[in-house]
C-alpha cells in the first residue's frame, strides 16, 4: 500500500472515528451524575455478602473473578512472550561469562547505595501488607505484587549485584509466576468439586474486618500477588540480561 493510499484510508477511518466520538460524547452524563445501577447495587451488598470492606477487590476477585482470571492470563502470556522472544538462541549465547559482569554495567553513587539498601526491607514489608490486606483496605495482589517485584530491582540499584543475581536465579521466581496462575485456576476449579459454579466463593467468610476474612477474595489476592511478583521479576531479569549483553557487546 503506498503512502498516499494509506493517508486516504486513514482520513476516512478518522472521519468515522470522529463521528462515533461525537455521537458517544453527546450521551455522556455530566460529571458526578452517576447512572450505572450495578455500582450502586454492589456497594450496598458487597460488605454483607462477602465480608470484604474493599469493594473494589470484592469485585475483582469475586463478583467478576472470571474476568480477572482472563486478565491474569493476559499477563501470564505476555511474560511468557517476552521470555520466548529473548530466549538464549545458542549462537550469541555467551552465558556464564556475562553473568558475572552485570556489576560492570552499573556505575553507582554512595548516596544511591545507602538509601536503596535502607528501602528494601520497607518495600518488602509494605508489599506483603498490600497483598494480604487487599480485602480490607486499598491494595491487593496486583498492586502489592508490583511493589514486591520492585524490591529486587532496588537491590540491584544499590549495587548488591550478587544478592540480586541470587534472587533472580532462584527457581522460586518461576514457581511464583506459574504457581500463582495455577493457584487462581485451582481455587476456581475447587468450587466445582463442591457442586457450585466455577470461582464461587466457597471458603468460609470469617468476620468482616479481620485479616482472614472474605474467603476466596483474600486467597485469590495472595496468589495474584505471587504471580505478579514472579512475572515482573522475570521481565526484569530478561531485560537486564539483554541490556548488559548489549553494552558488553559494544565495549568488546
Amino acid at each position, binding site marked *: 500500500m503506498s503512502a498516499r493510499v494509506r493517508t486516504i484510508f486513514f482520513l476516512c477511518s478518522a472521519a468515522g472515528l470522529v463521528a462515533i466520538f461525537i455521537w458517544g460524547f453527546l450521551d455522556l452524563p455530566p460529571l*458526578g451524575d452517576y447512572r450505572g445501577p450495578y*455500582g450502586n447495587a454492589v*456497594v*450496598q451488598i458487597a460488605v454483607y455478602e462477602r465480608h470484604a470492606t*474493599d469493594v473494589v*477487590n470484592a469485585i475483582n476477585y469475586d463478583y*467478576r473473578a472470571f474476568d480477572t482470571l482472563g*486478565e491474569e492470563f493476559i499477563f501470564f502470556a505476555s*511474560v511468557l512472550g517476552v521470555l520466548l*522472544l529473548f530466549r538464549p538462541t545458542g549462537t550469541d549465547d555467551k552465558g556464564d561469562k556475562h553473568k558475572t559482569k552485570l556489576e560492570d554495567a552499573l556505575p553507582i553513587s554512595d548516596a544511591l547505595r545507602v538509601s536503596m539498601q535502607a528501602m528494601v526491607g520497607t518495600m518488602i514489608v509494605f508489599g506483603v501488607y498490600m497483598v494480604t490486606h487487599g480485602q480490607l483496605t486499598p491494595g491487593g495482589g496486583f498492586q502489592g505484587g508490583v511493589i514486591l517485584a520492585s524490591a529486587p530491582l532496588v537491590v540491584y540499584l544499590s549495587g548488591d549485584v550478587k544478592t540480586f543475581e541470587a534472587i533472580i536465579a532462584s527457581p522460586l521466581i518461576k514457581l511464583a509466576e506459574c504457581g500463582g496462575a495455577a493457584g487462581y485456576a485451582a481455587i476456581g476449579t475447587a468450587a466445582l468439586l463442591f457442586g457450585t459454579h466455577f470461582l464461587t466463593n466457597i471458603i468460609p467468610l470469617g468476620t468482616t474486618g479481620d485479616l482472614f476474612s472474605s474467603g476466596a477474595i483474600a486467597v485469590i489476592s495472595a496468589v495474584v500477588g505471587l504471580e505478579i511478583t514472579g512475572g515482573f521479576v522475570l521481565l526484569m531479569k530478561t531485560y537486564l540480561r539483554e541490556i548488559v549483553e548489549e553494552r558488553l557487546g559494544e565495549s568488546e
Partner: protein
Amino acid sequence: MILAYLPYAIAAWIFLWGLYGIVTSKNLVHQVVCLAILQTSTYVLLLAIGYKVGGTAPVFADIPVGTVVVDPLVQALMLTDIVVEATVMALLLSMVVKANELAGTVDPEELRFLMG
C-alpha cells in the same frame, strides 16, 4: 457546565494525541509509548463516568456502609488493566528489540517484509 464535561474532553484529548503519535511515528519504540498514552485515556474516561458528587473511595474499612461512594466497578477494571498494560508494553518492546535485531531498523516504514 464546562467543568461537568471537562474530564471527557481530557480523555478524548489524550486519546487523540496517542492516536496521532501512533499514526505519524517513525519509530516503533515511540509508537509503543504512544499506544500506552492512548490507553491511559480510558482510565480518565472510566474514572469520570464512575464519579458521584460527594462520593468517597469504595472502601468500607472506616466508613459505614451506605455512605456515598464512587463506582467500584470501573476502578476494578482499571486496576487490573494498569498492571496488564505494563506487561503488554514489555512484550511489545521486546518485539521491537527483535525487529531491530533482524531488520536493523525500528522505522515502521522500512519494515516491509515478512520473515519466518
